[in-house]
């Protein structure tokens, strides 16, 4: 069965690394739903959060293929793990004086903030799980959504565990998906 999987991918911060990752997923027909890139806690290491849609074995294959890139340090499928996965959305919604207070109430329900306003619009910033953003959007749809940008989720495990790599000369690397026993070392 095809499911959404959230992959946390630690990569060396080299020029072109995003291109390598995206190009690899494209040419092997993996469907990318969203991708975010930014700094991690380690200097020189970036963290990508990639949402792919596929069957479990397809996603495992995607992880193994990613490991073949020299810049990829660690791939973790955090989907089955207990994690926080939040995204940011900026929503510019049409607002007249009659509707403004109703929109503000809806935003409040979803813990969203109004960050800008004009005589005809409100700019709402929402963060949270994707379903929460979806819910807010469905409520705002009736007022007229003028513009929308969503980041796609970034994810982190709850509790004290991390996906980080140890600074060792031979990092132990694993892909945290139910697999067939093969450790996906790069080759």
């Amino acid at each position, binding site marked *: 069965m095809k499911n959404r999987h959230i992959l946390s991918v630690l990569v060396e911060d080299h020029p072109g690394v995003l*291109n390598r990752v995206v190009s690899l997923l494209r040419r092997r027909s993996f469907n990318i739903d969203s991708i975010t890139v930014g700094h991690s806690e380690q200097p020189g290491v970036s963290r990508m959060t990639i949402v792919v849609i596929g069957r479990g074995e397809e996603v495992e294959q995607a992880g193994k293929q990613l490991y073949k890139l020299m810049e990829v340090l660690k791939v973790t499928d955090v989907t089955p793990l207990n994690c926080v996965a939040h995204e940011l959305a900026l929503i510019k919604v049409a607002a007249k004086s009659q509707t403004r207070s109703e929109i503000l109430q809806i935003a409040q329900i979803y813990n969203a903030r109004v960050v800008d306003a004009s005589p005809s619009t409100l700019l709402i910033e929402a963060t949270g799980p994707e379903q929460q953003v979806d819910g807010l959007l469905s409520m705002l749809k009736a007022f007229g959504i003028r513009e929308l940008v969503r980041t796609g989720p970034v994810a982190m495990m709850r509790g004290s565990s991390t996906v980080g790599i140890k600074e060792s000369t031979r990092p132990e690397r694993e892909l945290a998906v139910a697999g067939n026993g093969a450790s996906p070392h790069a*080759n």
Partner: protein
Amino acid sequence: MAAAKAAVLGQQNAEVPGAQREARPLLTGSEIVCRALEDEGVDTVFGYPGGAVIPLYDALPRAGFHHVLVRFEQWAALAAEGYARATGKPGVCLVTSGPGATNLVTGLADAMLDSIPIVAITGQVIQPLIGRDAFQEVDITGITLPVTKHNYMVNRIEDLAPTFKEAFHIATTGRPGPVLIDIPKTLFLQKHVYSYPETVFRRGYQPTSVPNMRQVRLAAEAIAKARKPLIMAGHGIMLSGATELFREFVEKTGIPVVHTLLGLGTFPESHPLGLGLMGMHGHKQVNDALDECDLLLNIGARFDDRATGQVSGFAPNAFVVHVDIDPAEIGKNVRTDVPVVGDAREVLKLLISEVQGGRHDDWMAWIDSRRNRVLDEALEERPEWPEPYSIIKAIAKATGGEAIVTTDVGQHQMWAAQHFGYDFPNRWITSGGLGTMGFGLPSAIGAKIGRPDLEVWAVIGDGGFQMSCNELATAVQENLDINIAVINNGYLGMVRQWQDLFHAKNYSEVKIGAPSFEKLAEAYGIAGMTVRCDAEIEPAIERARTIRGPVLIDFVIEPEANVWPIVPPGAANSGMLHQQRYEG
């Protein structure tokens, strides 16, 4: 004059403090590239000059390696591949920016799919012009992203030598593959001290060569239990230099061996346990054995679709053990019961001590009973045409099976795969994964330069030969003893065969004219012969072997000869078709 002036300027602008005091000479980027290649032990570079690499070519006459001037950049990559496949050492090719670089792409893709270590050097436009659509500028690192194991654009002179060290390391370790280094022309002209790193460390590149012992034991247990075991021998055995260990393993366990296309040569076909080619044009008993086996031990092969046929019908009764250095190959195409990630050599070392000795006489007798006797009889026939099988067998016989055989892709390739009987590693050089027409001649040039001690036969179709026959000039210039056997049916034979069998004989655009190959040979100043009947095959081969320099034999075969047997596209290996002509 200009160079001397630049050298003086370079000395004055020494970037390294104390360089003059320590008397460490400053080298130009061009000299650094040459020194790096020398330090990697490179003895041959296949290349073609052009604008962006003129400064590098300026340094070549002083370099400690031989440059082979090809006639088309694509063949530089394939010659480098031929060299690598024959010697086991990395092949090196060197071309200019823009069209020179794009012409390499097919060769890189070929090396990528067949896991061949190649280091390709491309010139790039000067740094201030990068990204401005300059003359002969292409984004070659972008273009070659999917067809290289890794690639680089070097931006700083101080990175040049370390990049070469890393590139050779990546190309030759783990699962080998092509690595491209793109160098802006500006860097060739700058100066820096030369220091070649001793070691390489990349956090994200740690190939697993020693397998997990638990997995090896599981494989050994499966071998102990099996009644009808079969080994699928892949290219990885050769790439890891494990053919002798492999033979020891096979002889200890008594398990018969079937070969993938690139696995030919990993285990002698003349050995009672060596069964030969599997898959689309595999031998009948081989594909029957795959259907029947209860254990399939794949060592160093990637379950390519031409080997497996329809995957759901592949080795349907087998417990599958897959040994591969690339974890991404495990479970990619075929469901695997016991994965063993590691270098074939390391796995075999451990496996040999874990397995019991054995024999499988009943199983071997069953396999032998499945041989296609009819086909063997057909080989004895002497029709009015030179029989393609007979040509291949005659070359094998004349050379004692010790020659290097290179091919293009198509019917002649399959005849050469089926009928030569490969007993030695690194003698069968063919384009397996990519199926590149034109591969045969340039790879023969690379192979002969790498192994001048071995006789080289390029077996080529008349279609493929017309793609790369310009390399005859290279073979002449290098004065190489290469024997070229053109298997000439006047058709793009394999496509014609598919049109014959699967498209109601609709021969669409497969009739292909050609010049007189004998006269073409003459034009290049080499010996040429034409063979039109069976009786002339052996004398022509014998004569070719006595002639120094390149020799061409044009074997004019039956235009509509087909390769048998054949698994139809989309079918399982069990659905293979056999030669109708000789069916009783």
